[in-house]
C-alpha cells in the first residue's frame, strides 16, 4: 500500500517536473525566435546569413551599422530588462502573496526613478553612480513602505495603499526636478520616466547583464525557500526556513535587477505585474516559476516592442503597448478578486 502511494506521488511529481521543463523550453524557443526577429526586421530586412556574418565580425556596408549599433543593443536591452522585470516582479508577488503587490503598483520603480533623476539633475553624477542610486532608491522605498505599513498588524492592503501614496509624492518630486533641470540634462532624465528600447546602447546594458547573470542563480537557489514562504510565514518557519534572512536576500536581489533594468530601458509598464500570473497559469503551481516568469517577461517586452515598431503607422515605444495590453488584465484580475472578496 505504502509503496503504491509513494509511486503515485513520485509519478505526479515527475509529470509536473516534465511539464515545467517542457514549458520552460518552449518559452526559451519563443524567446530565441523573437530575438532573431528583432535582429532581422527593421527599415531594411536582412537575411539570417547576413545577421550571423555581421555578428561574427564581418563588415557588410549598411547592415553592419544597423545590426551592431541599433538592433543588437535594442534586442539585448529588451532581453535582459524583460527577464529582470519578469523575475523581479514574480519574487515580489510571491513574497507578498498577492499579484497586485508588484514593484509598479507599490511605487518601487518610481523610487528608483526619483533617485536617478535626482542624481542626473541635481548632483550631475556619472551613469554608474546613477544606476547605484537607483538601486538604493528602490531599496529605501521598499523599506519606507514596509516600515509604515507594519503598524499594529501587517496587512497587504495597507502596504499597497501606502505604496500608492508614496508613489504620488515621488511623482510630484520627479516633476519638480524636471522643472528645475537644465535643458541638456532632461533627455537623460526622461529615459527614467517612460519605458522604451529606443536609443539603447550596448555599454549601458553591461551592469544589467552582470546583475542578471549573478542574481538569477541566487534567486533559483532560494526558490525552494520562496516556495515555502508561499505556504505562509508560519509554515515556512516550521520547515526550518529563516524567513527574515530569505526575505531580505530575495528583496534586495529583486530590487537590484529591477532598478538596473529601469536604468537601461525605463520602467516598462506592467511587465513585472503580468509575467508572474501568466507563468503561474502556464506552468502551474508546485515549482518555483522564476525562469518561466523571466522568460515571459522577455517575450512580453520583445513582442511588445515588435508590435510597437511595426504594427502601426507610427512607432510606439514598448511601454505604451504593454500599458494598453497590461492594464485591462489588471482590471480583470481586480474584478475577479473583488468577486471572491479577498484582497
Amino acid at each position: 500500500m505504502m509503496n503504491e502511494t509513494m509511486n503515485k506521488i513520485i509519478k505526479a511529481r515527475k509529470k509536473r517536473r516534465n511539464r515545467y521543463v517542457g514549458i520552460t523550453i518552449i518559452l526559451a524557443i519563443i524567446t530565441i525566435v523573437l530575438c532573431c526577429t528583432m535582429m532581422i526586421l527593421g527599415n531594411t530586412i536582412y537575411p539570417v546569413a547576413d545577421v550571423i556574418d555581421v555578428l561574427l565580425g564581418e563588415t557588410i556596408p549598411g547592415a553592419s551599422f544597423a545590426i551592431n549599433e541599433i538592433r543588437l543593443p535594442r534586442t539585448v536591452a529588451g532581453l535582459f530588462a524583460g527577464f529582470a522585470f519578469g523575475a523581479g516582479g514574480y519574487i515580489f508577488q510571491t513574497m507578498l502573496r498577492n499579484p497586485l503587490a508588484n514593484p509598479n503598483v507599490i511605487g518601487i520603480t518610481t523610487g528608483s526613478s526619483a533617485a536617478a533623476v535626482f542624481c542626473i539633475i541635481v548632483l550631475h553624477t556619472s551613469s554608474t553612480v546613477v544606476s547605484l542610486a537607483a538601486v538604493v532608491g528602490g531599496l529605501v522605498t521598499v523599506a519606507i513602505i514596509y516600515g509604515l505599513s507594519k503598524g499594529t498588524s501587517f496587512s497587504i492592503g495597507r502596504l499597497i495603499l501606502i505604496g500608492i501614496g508614496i508613489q504620488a509624492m515621488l511623482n510630484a518630486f520627479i516633476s519638480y526636478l524636471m522643472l528645475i533641470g537644465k535643458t541638456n540634462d532632461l533627455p537623460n532624465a526622461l529615459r527614467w520616466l517612460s519605458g522604451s528600447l529606443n536609443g539603447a546602447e550596448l555599454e549601458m546594458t553591461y551592469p544589467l547583464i552582470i546583475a542578471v547573470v549573478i542574481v538569477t542563480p541566487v534567486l533559483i537557489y532560494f526558490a525552494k525557500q520562496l516556495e515555502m514562504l508561499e505556504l505562509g510565514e508560519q509554515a515556512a518557519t516550521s520547515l526550518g526556513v529563516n524567513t527574515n534572512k530569505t526575505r531580505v536576500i530575495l528583496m534586495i536581489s529583486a530590487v537590484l535587477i529591477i532598478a538596473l533594468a529601469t536604468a537601461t530601458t525605463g520602467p516598462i509598464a506592467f511587465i513585472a505585474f503580468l509575467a508572474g500570473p501568466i507563468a503561474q497559469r502556464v506552468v502551474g503551481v508546485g515549482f518555483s516559476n522564476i525562469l518561466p516568469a523571466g522568460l515571459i517577461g522577455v517575450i512580453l517586452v520583445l513582442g511588445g516592442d515588435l508590435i510597437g515598431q511595426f504594427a502601426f503607422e507610427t512607432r510606439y515605444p514598448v511601454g505604451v503597448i504593454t500599458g494598453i495590453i497590461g492594464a485591462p488584465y489588471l482590471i480583470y484580475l481586480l474584478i475577479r478578486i473583488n468577486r471572491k472578496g479577498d484582497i
Partner: protein
Amino acid sequence: MKNIPEKGNKQRLLPKHLAKVVALLLILLIVSIGMSLAFGSRTISLEGLIDGLFHPSVESHEASVVRQRIARTIFGLICGAALGVSGALMQSVTRNPIADPSILGVNTGASLFVVCGIAFLSIHSPSEYIWLAIVGAMLTAVFVFGIGSMGASGATPLKLVLAGAATTAILSSLVTAILIPRTNVMDQFRFWQVGSVGSANWDSVHIFIPFFMAGIVIAILVAPALNALALGDEVATGLGVRTGVIRMLAAFAGVLLCGAATALAGPIGFIGLLATHLIRLVVGPDVRFLIPLAAVSGAIILLISDVCGRFLGSPGELEVGILTAFIGAPILILITMKAKMRTI
C-alpha cells in the same frame, strides 16, 4: 431630519468650535488671496496692492501687476473650492475616507476625452472641451466605482484605489498613444499633464462660474440628506430620504465640479482629500458644515500652494498640481496607517 426636537439638541447640532474655525478660515482665506495677488516674480508692496484693488484711477506699475493677477487668483479660488467640495461629496457618497478625484482616476478620464477632442474633433476652445472633460470624468467615475464596489464587502478604500490606479494606467497609456503621432496636439496638451492655474484668465473664470454654481447649489441642497445617508441606507430610507436619487445627485455634482476644474486647470490632485479631512478633524462629520468649509479650505490650500509654487519654481513656476500631490499624499498614508484592518 427636521423632526429632531429643537430645544436642548440645538447646542449639540452645532459643532463645538464652529465659530472659531469659520473665523480662522476666513482670515486665512483673505491672507492667501492677498498673498496670491502680491507675490510672484515681482513682489508688490501693501500700498501697491491696495492701489491696484481699490483705486482704479492709480496707474502705477505695481497696481497694474496686481490687476493682472486678479483673474488668476479668482480662478484659483473657485477651482480650489470646487475641488474641496467635490472631495467632500465623493467621500460622503462612497462612504469612503479616501475618495478624491485624482485617486479615483476621474482626472485621467477627463484628460483622455479632452485629448480625443483636440485630436479627432479639432476642438480648441476651453468652453467646448469642458463638456468633454465632464463626460469623461463621469464615465470614469461610474466605471471605477462599479469595479471598486463589486463583491460582498462593497467599496472598500483599497478596492477603489486599485480600481482607480488600474483605470488611470489604461487611460494614460491611451493618452500617450494618441499624443505620440500628433506633436501639435502634444504641445496644446502639455500644460495639462500637471495641473496649473498659471494660464488662467477672465475667460476661464467666466466658463467655470456656471458649472461651479450648479455644483455648489446641488451640494448644499443634498447635504442634509447625505447626513442621513451616513447612518446607513435603511436608516436613511426610514428618515424619508430617497437614497438612490440623493446619491446620484451628489455624485453628479461632485463629478461636475472636478470635471470642470480639470478641464480648465488640468489634473490637480488631493485637494479634496486634504480639505475634507482637515475640516472633519475640527468640526466633525456633519456634511452641512463640511461642504462649505471644505470649499473655503480647498480654496486656501490651492492659493497657498500656487503662491509657494511661484517661489519654489523661480524663475519659472512650479505647477500647483505638483505641490498639492506632495502635501496631500502623506494624508492618504496617514489615513491608511490609522485605519483598522477590516475597513481597508
